[in-house]
């Protein structure tokens, strides 16, 4: 089983620790996991694991978008905290045509609602879990832990 984790713009503090958390969780669930991110977000994750404890498999987001095809992954998990992240998630979701989970968060409740609506309007079958959060990863972690049970 293969899982792809999509990271958005790295300006959200909670994204990096949660990327490692999600990677670890999916790996323990038996997924061969890959994280796709832009260069800065990749570096933040890479530096978070100096001893290579997690054996993080990191790829460039835009290059990977050009390479993937339907069926390449069995699960897609996306961090959606910006308009562009919603667009990237929907695009990967449509290409891969696989099970998917969108972790929607923002410090602004209106943005949370807007990003959820963007994914829903796309016709995606993704499971969407949403919460107002920015600095503190705990609310997103709680939502992820609950949502990922649907895929166990």
């Amino acid at each position, binding site marked *: 089983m293969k899982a792809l984790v999509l990271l958005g713009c790295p*300006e959200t503090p909670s994204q990096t620790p949660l990327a490692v958390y999600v990677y670890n969780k999916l790996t323990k669930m038996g997924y061969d996991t890959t994280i796709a991110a832009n260069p800065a*977000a990749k570096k933040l994750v890479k530096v978070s694991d100096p001893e290579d404890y997690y054996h993080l498999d990191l790829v460039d987001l835009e290059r990977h978008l*050009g390479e993937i095809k339907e069926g390449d992954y069995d699960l897609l998990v996306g961090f959606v905290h910006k308009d562009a*992240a919603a*667009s990237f998630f*929907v*695009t*990967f979701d*449509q290409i891969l045509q696989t099970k998917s989970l969108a972790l929607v968060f923002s410090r602004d409740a209106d943005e949370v609602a807007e990003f959820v609506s963007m994914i829903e309007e*796309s016709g995606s079958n993704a499971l969407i879990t949403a919460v107002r959060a920015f600095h503190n990863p705990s609310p997103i972690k709680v939502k992820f832990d609950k949502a990922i049970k649907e895929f166990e």
Partner: protein
Amino acid sequence: MSFCLDTYLQQSDNYEIHASKAGFKDCAMIIRFKADDLVYIKPGDEVLGVRVIGIPPIPIGFDHEKGTVFLPYTKPCHGTSVVELPIDEEEMEKIRKLDTGNKK
């Protein structure tokens, strides 16, 4: 060698940005407003050598008088922009073949 939008935008100044660091929906509206002809494609469809990112149906516009195409261009940290650049008939036909006909 086929056309590649990323390379073109880095190496040419013959293009126009109509919106930058915007949301996808605003950019889709600008394309619908500015173009005199539209096709609607799916996210991930390849236009000018890149996979187009966005929420379906994604509008791609043409200005036949100027011989240009309008398309959304999304970067993770910079949001979505509307880029207008020259296009030849062959590339235009390739885009037309992607038309889903779905405008909603």
